[in-house]
């Protein structure tokens, strides 16, 4: 394993220490229980927005803590859900008296830990609403399974709900807005290489030199299918078709598009992927009203990318354009 780390067991803590040191103007990091919180939290009278999940997806979630996005984030160990006590502490720290929205990615572990935390918070008299993000079209949905994974749409939901909260939107409307974003967002990911979990020390899966995984999540889970390596054009067409046919998106839809890197893929390639995505969407008559290209929801050092499309209404677009000042995403301030 080749990583810039010390003891694999200390990666998350040491990295969070660096995040805190680098962005003291934006956020603070609390340890034991561990959470990242806005420097000026709690914002009196504002509904709080928090999220969390396993680490290894940086800048998500800690890098999205700040004005116009998250009030707090709970980083678990690498690829491991945070624990109820972390989530409860983060919720308390984010609560300005108007309740707190939990944006939860749909993984059994995340769901159960956020559930237990919500019970603790309610008991402590903090109003909590949880919205589950499950936007991954690679996973067939079904009543009998854990359902779809939560991936790229999480980033868009955090930006949009964070902006709404900043404007004084109350908890009930925040919950409704977040559900609307989830219902209109779809994602698909692919991997050229596996990632390596620091504590595991070797790649999670082996992929031949001329193979790729289609339909991966963000935890190094193998994808839905393994296929021969293809060029960017074919890859993007395949991913986009899966996304478009799922919602389904229609001509004249206006979208917010995200081309996201999995952590080991350079910008040179991500911009090339974005060019291909525009081509495909143009052909389908679907407009890209706003876009994000870069590494936002990653999977450690995995090479690969994901595409997220959100069918955006006017409110979402306006909130998308609102100022945001975080370590991982900033604009308008």
């Amino acid at each position, binding site marked *: 394993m080749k990583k810039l780390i010390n003891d694999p067991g200390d990666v998350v803590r040491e990295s969070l220490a660096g995040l805190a040191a680098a962005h003291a103007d934006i956020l603070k990091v609390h340890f034991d229980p561990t959470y990242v919180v806005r420097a000026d939290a709690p914002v009196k009278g504002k509904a709080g927005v928090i999220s969390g999940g396993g680490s290894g997806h940086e800048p998500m979630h800690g890098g999205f803590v700040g004005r116009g996005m998250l009030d707090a984030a709970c980083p678990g160990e690498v690829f491991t859900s945070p624990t109820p006590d972390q989530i409860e502490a983060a919720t308390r720290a984010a609560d300005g008296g108007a309740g707190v929205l939990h944006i939860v990615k749909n993984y059994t*572990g995340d769901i159960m*830990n956020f559930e*237990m935390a919500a019970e603790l918070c309610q008991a402590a008299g903090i109003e909590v609403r949880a919205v589950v993000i499950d936007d991954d079209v690679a996973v*067939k949905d079904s009543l009998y*399974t*854990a359902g779809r994974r939560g991936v790229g749409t999480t980033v868009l939901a955090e930006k949009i709900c964070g902006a709404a909260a900043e404007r004084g939107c109350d908890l009930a409307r925040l919950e409704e807005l977040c559900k609307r974003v989830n219902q209109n967002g779809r994602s698909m990911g692919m991997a050229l290489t596996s990632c390596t979990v620091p*504590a*595991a020390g070797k790649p999670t*899966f082996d992929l031949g030199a001329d193979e790729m995984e289609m339909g991966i999540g963000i935890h190094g889970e193998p994808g*839905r299918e393994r296929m021969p390596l293809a060029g960017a054009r074919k890859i993007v067409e395949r991913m986009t078709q899966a996304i478009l046919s799922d919602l389904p998106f229609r001509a004249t839809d206006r979208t917010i598009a995200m081309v996201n890197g999995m952590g080991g893929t350079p910008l040179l390639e991500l911009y090339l992927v974005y060019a291909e995505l525009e081509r495909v969407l143009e052909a389908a008559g679907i407009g890209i009203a706003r876009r994000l290209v870069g590494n936002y929801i990653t999977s450690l050092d995995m090479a690969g990318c994901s595409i997220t499309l959100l069918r955006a209404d006017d409110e979402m677009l306006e909130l998308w354009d609102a100022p945001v000042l975080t370590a991982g995403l900033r604009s308008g301030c």
Partner: protein
Amino acid sequence: MTVTREQMLAWLDALAGVYAENKERLTELDSAIGDADHGINMDRGFTAVKAELAAAAPADIRGILQKVATVLIKTVGGASGPLYGTFFLRAAAAAPHPEMDILAFLQAGVEGVRQRGKAEPGDKTMLDALLPALDAMRTGGLDAAAAAAEAGMRATIPMQARKGRACYLGARSVGHQDPGATSAWLMIKTAAETWRL
């Protein structure tokens, strides 16, 4: 069959060793159909349990089980954290002192896992090891329970996962042994070994 406070502490102490030894193996299994951390999670959790109990072990079994539950919930994370945490939380509630009935203990714990995870038998989860173990306990005692857990664990191999991370793989989850079922078997097996009565 009942166990004393000392036997309970002996079992928990043994479990820390067992999960440390099986850390790689459980993580290996989780790499195939999950996210390669189950062994790491279990080891982190039971190492913490051992440390906590070494520092200050509560006077009665219920207190011990409650402490184990909170430590697991705080340190394991993932899906297995809340599940095993709930297991011990419910077991604690069912534990009268000074001695504890193993069947009552197992019954409450397994029921807790079922309620927390909402999984069914055959979903390819730890329940597929725990439920058979519980049934066998009723009739054949701890050794039978351990054997049943092992059989249940092996039975997860041909299953297609319907709960947990593995279900994202759909048909590709078939042919792999479930990591959680494996850690559950280790738990029962270690009990049978430390509680030889």
